[in-house]
């Protein structure tokens, strides 16, 4: 079944009052903390500009940086695999897991694995995936989809999480309280057993440092760090857009990311790992570099700015649309405003669902204001809307919307035509109105009057008044 358009996918989310209350609470708390962190950093604007410049520079010579990265990872004893699309990435990872003979993998901190549908692929290969991020684990236990990039269970409250853990963690017992300490302790007990048993781990990475072949990951729980150190085999998967040229560049991003994601000056756990080290950590390290539409986005001269994204979720936390729908209507890849551009940029706008994403915004601009790497998201949204319309122009029969928009432009293209149409329109609108308001409009405009009135146009337009009194 094809994925529904944003508007249709948003409907059940709007009706879920509990999820909406939880999301509103989570985003309001985060944006308050983020704003305070930005305000408390004297050189915040300089940092943003530096982040923008490093991101652009990295993308400009992406091929060279990727080659350097591959060389450095290989020299450090790791193996680099290239995956052009999701299918290839799934094949590489399932092949690597199969070769170890493991029937269970632990997984942490990877939206990229969701992008490629890794869990299902591994399940089909007879391998059980255990999410180790607490929020991811809650989503997995609840058998639902994540709603937030940073805290995937932002739509759940403590009572719901306690209920899920009571059922899933046999040791937790029915008496598990729903205070944060008790929940964290139950999750810890549950996860410890998984970590100690695991022979293979799959992780993502926030950054890939080309010059040293180092991967960097930021997290608040320490569970990803357990995945990085305990198992024998470590498989990290990351998009090719995560490359930064030098270790020095991390100075900027290690300041930008925590402030924009959780409002903290520093992330509790910053892990970096390079290849393999004899006698310590995993004995085998694989890095899977994923394209999956990223070079397509890179080829788009307006859209490529979106590849600077460092996945902080600040744009989601300020987005009034996201606050009401959560992340799920944006599709499986990236939620929020950045998802509304990254998904169509990497996948194209051929499907109705992907074509609906650039319209899932009022273009209010709040996202651009907070983006730590200064991505002008509304600019990219408008650019992508242009692509959607261009793709519709190629259809033999114009859509009603296209006929309306072309007709409007033709009418307004000439003052005389415009004035005649206005006179006609006013007559019709006044016929539709009762008591100075229009409660139902026909056709495509009917969407407006589903819940809003339109004022009836006064008998005299401004033009008419001007001609009568001033001309």
């Amino acid at each position, binding site marked *: 079944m094809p994925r529904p358009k944003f508007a249709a996918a948003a409907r059940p989310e709007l009706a879920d009052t509990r999820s909406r209350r939880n999301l509103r609470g989570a985003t309001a708390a985060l944006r308050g903390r983020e704003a305070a962190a930005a305000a408390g950093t004297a050189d915040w604007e300089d940092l943003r500009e530096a982040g923008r410049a490093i991101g652009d520079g990295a993308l400009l010579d992406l091929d060279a940086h990727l080659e350097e990265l591959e060389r450095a990872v290989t020299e450090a004893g790791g193996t680099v695999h290239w995956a052009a699309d999701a299918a290839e990435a799934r094949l590489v990872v399932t092949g690597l897991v199969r070769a170890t003979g493991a029937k269970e993998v632990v997984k942490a901190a990877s939206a990229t694995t969701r992008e490629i549908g890794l869990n299902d692929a591994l399940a089909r290969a007879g391998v059980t995936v255990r999410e180790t991020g607490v929020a991811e684990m809650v989503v997995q236990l609840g058998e639902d989809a994540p709603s937030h990039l940073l805290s995937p269970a932002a739509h759940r409250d403590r009572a719901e999480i306690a209920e899920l853990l009571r059922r899933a963690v046999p040791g937790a017992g029915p008496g598990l309280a729903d205070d944060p300490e008790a929940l964290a302790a139950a999750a810890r007990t549950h996860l410890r057993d998984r970590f100690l048993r695991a022979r293979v781990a799959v992780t993502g990475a926030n950054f890939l440092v080309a010059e040293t072949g180092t991967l960097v990951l930021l997290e608040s729980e320490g569970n990803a760090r357990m995945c990085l150190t305990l198992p024998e085999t470590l498989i990290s998967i990351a998009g090719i857009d995560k490359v930064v040229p030098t270790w020095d560049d991390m100075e900027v991003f290690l300041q930008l990311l925590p402030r924009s994601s959780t409002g903290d000056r520093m992330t509790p756990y910053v892990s970096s790992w390079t290849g393999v080290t004899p006698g310590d950590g995993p004995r085998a390290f694989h890095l899977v570099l994923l394209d999956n539409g990223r070079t397509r986005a890179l080829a788009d001269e307006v859209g490529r700015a979106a590849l600077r994204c460092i996945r902080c979720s600040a744009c989601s936390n300020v987005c009034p649309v996201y606050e009401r729908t959560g992340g799920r209507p944006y599709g499986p890849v990236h939620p929020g405003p950045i998802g509304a551009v990254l998904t169509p940029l990497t996948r194209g706008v051929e499907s109705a669902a992907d074509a609906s994403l650039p319209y899932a915004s009022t273009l209010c601009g709040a996202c651009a204001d907070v983006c730590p790497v200064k991505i002008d998201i509304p600019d990219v949204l408008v650019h992508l809307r242009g692509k959607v319309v261009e793709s519709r122009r190629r259809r033999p029969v114009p859509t009603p919307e296209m006929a309306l928009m072309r007709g409007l432009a033709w009418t307004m293209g000439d003052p005389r035509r415009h004035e005649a149409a206005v006179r006609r329109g*006013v007559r019709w609108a006044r016929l539709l109105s009762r008591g100075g308001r229009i409660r139902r409009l026909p056709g495509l405009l009917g*969407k407006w009057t589903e819940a809003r009135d339109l004022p009836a*146009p006064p008998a005299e337009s401004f033009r008419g008044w001007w001609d009568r009194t001033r001309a």
Partner: protein
Amino acid sequence: MRVALSVACFEDVLFPGTAKAVTVLLERLGHEVAFPPGQTCCGQFHWTAGYHREAAGLARSHAAAFEGCEVVVAPSASCAATVRADYPKIARAARDPGLARAAEGLAFYELTEFLVDVLGVTDVGAYFPHRVTYHPSCRSLRTLGVGDRPVRLLRSVRGLDLVELPSAGECCGFGGAFAMKNADVSVAMVADKVRHVRDTGAEVVCAVDDSCLAHIGGALSRLRGGVRTMHLAEILAETGPA
């Protein structure tokens, strides 16, 4: 000063009171107002909806309608923002350097910018004895950065009781085609905006964009909310006992 008026296409028909108020206000301040007849629409709706070819055509004729005007004033932040912030982008998308040059040659202002920055007035001699709250539209707030200019103008109105709107900077959910394409989300957003407006106890909610006001007012009207929407210009044009 001779001031050319730019009136939004839907404003001309649905909210003629706004442009009349601007005319009355500017004439009261001693300026000559002109209404260049060639203007129809700035092309914003087509541009933001993705109809970029059509937007370029409209932008060309809109820019041409104001060619040679000393100064152009629009009582609509979103139209002013379109000319100033979007025309360069429209020109680039259409590969039309002529349009870019034409846009650059226009001194195009949103009304409150013009009053405060160009004319240097915040007290326009208005009298409006009502409780009013102000909704800063997204384009005025973020694209143009009009800041507190509208509030300073309102504070100088005699008799006016200005009350702050909670979560004022949050979008009302109009967003042009968004209100139709994502009607349910749009309504959820305006429902919150209307709740905040009613929480203030104001009789009037004003803004510098009739588009947002049409949205907020449309929801208030359906609810019989007992709150009026007015364009800021209409308040500034009101006078009373000296």
